[in-house]
């Protein structure tokens, strides 16, 4: 129990802070959502023109910088990269598309359930199913090969870019886009969002909090460590929502959600499967980006591009439901994940072929 204390406290803090961010202005059940916030940043930078979801979310900047500061302080900052970067970029795109079909990353999935949004149950079922599929390939020897130590400078670039984003946000030059209506216009004050991000980023770095790792490790090793963090977020944000009167049980008319159970399931199945292949959920990818893992930086860039694609091609869902293009995209994502999973599983593809290809 004592080894889990840290992550339970961290999960509890994430749950409470998420509810507070909603209280101070964030969209409902969206204290944190890595997918939604990266999507908003893509919009803020003009990579897509969906005018209801454009904002430079300070939470993201805070998460990266919080992880950066704590990792430097604890001498855990390590610049590394080179573990199948472009494969990771493509999986990042798929994970983002899956998340925007459901309308939330795994963290928001939990926050939605804690707010009484029962549609999230289909999401969780899909998420777990996706993780199961990913684990099958892990057991068949799936891996994306080793990363290597690289120059420290490379690892400092992403945290520096985030400081640049923060300066842009504060200066808010006219070439940025800021939503005047819709979820993108709903935000806690910058200083609060940034502080929340810094705290959660530091805690997540320290405890390795990961939404996909919980279920994955439970299936693979019967290890409850990460799952305790997942459960703590659910329990504490549920209590917070009750305390603030945000809790609203049901399927219909949930905030920034649709009621299409099948596609909630399939969208999150893409996210669960893809995240297992990446070695961590979108939150974890951001945290690793802050501690010098440039493969995770590439993944986050994939998610950013995925968000732009999702809105430019009309794939993203809305409260009105799932789009026809979005449904096609989910199947393309499954095909991509299937091919990537198969070709990188050592016992499925002869080892000789793989080493030849890597020479």
């Amino acid at each position, binding site marked *: 129990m004592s080894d889990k204390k840290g992550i339970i406290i961290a999960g509890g803090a994430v749950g409470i802070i998420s509810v507070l961010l909603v209280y101070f202005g964030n969209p409902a059940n969206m204290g944190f959502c890595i997918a939604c916030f990266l999507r908003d940043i893509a919009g803020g930078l003009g990579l897509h023109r969906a005018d209801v979801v454009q904002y430079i979310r300070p939470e993201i900047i805070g998460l990266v910088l919080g992880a950066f500061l704590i990792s430097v302080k604890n001498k855990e900052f390590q610049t590394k990269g080179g*573990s199948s970067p472009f494969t990771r970029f493509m999986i990042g795109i798929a994970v983002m598309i899956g998340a925007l079909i459901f309308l939330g990353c795994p963290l928001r999935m939990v926050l939605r359930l804690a707010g009484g949004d029962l549609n999230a149950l289909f999401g969780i079922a899909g998420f777990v199913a996706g993780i199961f599929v990913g684990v099958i390939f892990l057991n068949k020897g799936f891996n994306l090969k080793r*990363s290597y130590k690289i120059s420290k400078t490379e690892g400092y670039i992403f945290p520096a870019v985030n400081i640049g984003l923060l300066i842009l946000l504060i200066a808010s030059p006219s070439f940025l886009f800021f939503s005047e209506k819709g979820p993108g216009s709903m935000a806690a004050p910058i200083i609060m969002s940034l502080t929340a991000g810094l705290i959660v980023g530091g805690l997540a770095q320290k405890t390795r909090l990961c939404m996909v790792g919980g279920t*994955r490790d439970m299936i693979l090793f019967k290890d409850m460590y990460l799952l305790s963090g997942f459960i703590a977020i659910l329990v504490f944000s549920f209590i917070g929502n009750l305390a603030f009167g945000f809790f609203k049980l049901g399927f219909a008319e949930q905030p920034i959600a649709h009621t299409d159970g099948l596609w909630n399931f399939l969208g999150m199945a893409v996210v669960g499967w893809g995240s297992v292949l990446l070695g*961590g959920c979108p939150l974890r990818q951001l945290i690793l980006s802050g501690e010098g893992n440039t*493969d995770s930086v590439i993944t986050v860039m994939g998610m950013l591009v995925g968000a732009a694609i999702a809105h430019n091609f009309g794939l993203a869902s809305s409260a009105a439901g799932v789009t026809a293009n979005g449904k096609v995209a989910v199947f393309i994502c499954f095909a991509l994940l299937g091919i990537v999973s198969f070709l990188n599983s050592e016992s499925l593809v002869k080892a000789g072929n793989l080493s030849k290809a890597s020479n």
Partner: protein
Amino acid sequence: MKKIDTCGMSCPQPVLMTKKALEESPEGLDIIVDNNTAKGNVERFLKNSGYKVIITENEDNYILEARK
């Protein structure tokens, strides 16, 4: 003693590699890891599986000696 090198592998590979190697060499194993996350994960797995673990810290890696 059998030795495996998990450096540069992302989650959960270091633990998976350890689990697989222990099936072949249940009496014990030396595992090289290159970051704190993997060190913690592998150590937790070994202890949960009933092994004693001695950790040696080197300049850019750790060696975990797992013994029954």
